């Protein structure tokens, strides 16, 4: 009885802020302006503009996720090999920027990358060729990597620290080289962290619209931008919700894949 009472606030929270809004999205997505049932809002993903936007989103978020993984794994390895006093400092350095608002950090990149921005001013001063990636897909990927990297580092780091050093020592005792140890012992054991990191980076990257507006100069239309525009500018909540449902399918797909790879369910917890 007592336990049930304790869970009440969470149940209320779930209902008010997750389940009811989700039901509203589904309701809007499956109806038209008159309230009649329709699949047109979901089928609208097939139009040239929407499918292209979805394709671009998948492509850019995939690229962002892979780059995050390549950067985060070695870093997590280094961190997990350090003494407690050192690594908590480095983890702090990684988390520190997250204390600042996401929007501000992205706007900061806009001023950094501009033609006469800080990076190019420094490059010109050193007589180096200037960097012209603002308002291109590369800038959007950069924004994704910068903003979501900590979400990749932390789960991998957690998974790595959980590996019993005796397992690694045993592998070495039995004659495995360092590459073999990594490929057959460390990496498979850290997989739950990797999977959880991929989900935590891929999902927000897939749905972003702020990064593409600010760093892409509104020149690259992502599916997040389409949905945002339907809600805030066009005022067609039905179409916006329908496209959100399509996007949710991709997110669920990603989660199912994670669940298959992550049978032990370790990576899900940070």
């Amino acid at each position, binding site marked *: 009885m007592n336990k049930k009472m304790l869970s009440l606030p969470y149940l209320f929270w779930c209902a008010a802020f997750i389940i009811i809004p989700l039901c509203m999205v589904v309701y809007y997505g499956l109806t038209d302006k008159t309230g009649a049932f329709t699949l047109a809002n979901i089928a609208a993903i097939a139009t*040239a*503009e929407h499918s*292209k*936007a979805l394709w671009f989103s998948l492509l850019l978020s995939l690229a962002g996720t892979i780059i995050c993984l390549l950067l985060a794994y070695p870093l997590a390895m280094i961190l997990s090999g350090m003494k407690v006093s050192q690594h908590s400092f480095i983890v702090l350095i990684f988390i520190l920027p997250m204390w600042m608002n996401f929007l501000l950090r992205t706007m900061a990149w806009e001023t950094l990358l*501009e*033609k*006469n921005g800080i990076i190019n001013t420094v490059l010109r001063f050193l007589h180096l060729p200037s960097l012209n990636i603002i*308002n291109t897909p590369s800038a959007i990927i950069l924004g994704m990597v910068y903003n979501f990297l900590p979400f990749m580092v932390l789960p991998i780091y957690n998974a790595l620290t959980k590996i019993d050093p005796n397992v690694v020592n045993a592998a070495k005792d039995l004659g495995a080289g360092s590459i073999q140890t990594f490929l057959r012992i460390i990496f498979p054991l850290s997989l739950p962290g990797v999977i959880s990191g991929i989900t935590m980076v891929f999902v927000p990257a897939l749905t972003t619209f702020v990064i593409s507006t600010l760093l892409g*100069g*509104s*020149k*690259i*239309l992502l599916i997040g*931008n*389409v949905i945002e*525009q339907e*809600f*805030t*500018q*066009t*005022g067609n909540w039905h179409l916006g919700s329908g496209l959100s449902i399509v996007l949710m399918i991709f997110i669920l797909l990603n989660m199912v894949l994670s669940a298959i790879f992550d049978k032990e369910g370790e990576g899900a917890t940070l």
Partner: protein
Amino acid sequence: MTACLFAGCGSSDKYPNGKVYVYNWGEYIDEETIKLFEKETGIEVIYDEFDTNETMYPKIEAGASNYDVVCPSDYMIQKMVDNDLLAELNWDNLPNARSNIGAEYYEQSLAFDPDNRYSVPYCWGTVGILYNTTMVDEPVTSWSILWDEKYKDNILMQDSVRDLFMVALKELGYSMNSTNEAELQEAKNLLITQKPLVQAYVIDQVRDKMIGDEAALGVIYSGEAIYTQRENPNLAYVIPEEGTNVWIDSWVIPKNAENKENAEKFIDFMCRGDIALMNFEFITYSTPNTAARDLIEDEDIRNSEIAFPDLSQYNNLETFSYLGEEADRLYNDLWKEIKSYTSY
């Protein structure tokens, strides 16, 4: 109970006469005037901002946020009138608005507010090209320069549907209120051919990017021109010969406003000559307030061609009108095609 005491008492002491919820464009007021209003009237102002008419409208339509005063543009006021979202003003409560706002602006307002029942003009202006004289060699006279390959990656366009189409429709010689699908398709195709030359589609950032020498040419509201020139003397503003948009942003009161009388007090306060002058000097958008214009000390500004252009010498000036839901959808679909286009 305690929370209520903490939240309530402080403000009711300071503001005995209730509240007014104001929804205005970003950076479109001298905040000092709000403080003066609060001090003089004892009414607390809760102030929010929007960046395009299109983002403002759904919020008012949904009625979830009870704003008492809003400042939309001409065509959006028409849409709000059509959809019965506005309250009629009580002109007896608006003596400053009646005496200080020039008659020609009320006349111009008739296009979107027949009988002048709903709106009080706040700012007006044109849309034109702001260019950097050190980066552009030839004289700028026409919208067509925005399609010149020479300025690839040096052009800033507006990230707002009607403003973007206005440029292309005028360049093609059509009305910017066109609902003819063939004309709009042509405008869309023209904008798509322009896209590889455009550095970015932005709204308020045109100002900062032009000041920072980021681009050579940008489509901008006339009110920003004086401010940008103050910050960067190399910038010049021109109204293209094919004509442009002459717009008015006016104060209106939504139908569901809970503090209508306070809203009228706020609007009338903003029409006071000295207050309108403060706002003009801060935001540099042309004021329809003749009392304020007479108070401007700097003669160059009082007679500035940018702030107070003589509209009779320009051709094909138009004001946006609301085109109906059907046309709205067409514009938005075509806009999406432009946004979706990539050359790679």
